């Protein structure tokens, strides 16, 4: 257990509504990541953070924003959810240059 929780674990929402997913860690690791997992695509990096208020874009960042105001929390926001953002979202944490450990995932359905 890498001390990572994600909330909510499941969410159904409607197109056009804002959605925020939360990743919380108890390990105080510097690096945190948000991925999405879709059939046939594996995991794709959305955004990552290398410290409080330090974030950068990943491969599929369009339509997503992130914030990290505390070491332990990394928030992913969909400003206006679309059906193409229906997916399973995973958070991961890592020490610099080390293995990434993943949370249990959030299943998001956008109707």
């Amino acid at each position: 257990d890498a001390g990572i929780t994600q909330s909510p674990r499941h969410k159904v929402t409607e197109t056009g509504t804002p959605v925020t997913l939360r990743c919380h860690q108890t390990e105080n690791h510097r690096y945190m990541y948000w991925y999405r997992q879709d059939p046939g695509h594996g995991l794709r990096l959305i955004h990552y953070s290398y410290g409080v208020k330090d974030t950068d874009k990943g491969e599929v960042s369009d339509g997503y924003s992130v914030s990290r105001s505390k070491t332990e929390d990394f928030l992913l926001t969909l400003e206006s959810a679309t059906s193409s953002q229906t997916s399973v979202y995973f958070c991961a944490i890592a020490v610099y240059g080390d293995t990434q450990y993943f949370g249990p995932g959030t299943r998001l359905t956008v109707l």
Partner: protein
Amino acid sequence: SQELEQSPQSLIVQEGKNLTINCTSSKTLYGLYWYKQKYGEGLIFLMMLQKGGEEKSHEKITAKLDEKKQQSSLHITASQPSHAGIYLCGADFWGSGNKLVFGAGTILRVKS
């Protein structure tokens, strides 16, 4: 990712049989990570390889990285139902270990 290809996409084996999953990169790898995922759950770290020719084992699972550091294989000996799941490889192309590119995954089913 097209930078990282996994094969096969899916695999059904009889319990007790051996199997191999491959992960092939279009570029030299600084590091290669193997993860396992059970349906509806998060990814569990298995092994990480960094050096050309490196081989690591954990219980009945062995992972190898070729000398050119562009291909890795995951071999399971005497498969069991507990080995079923999705296996993903993740590549570090930049040497920092901070950004990984993942393959599409291999779905493994083990028939009892």
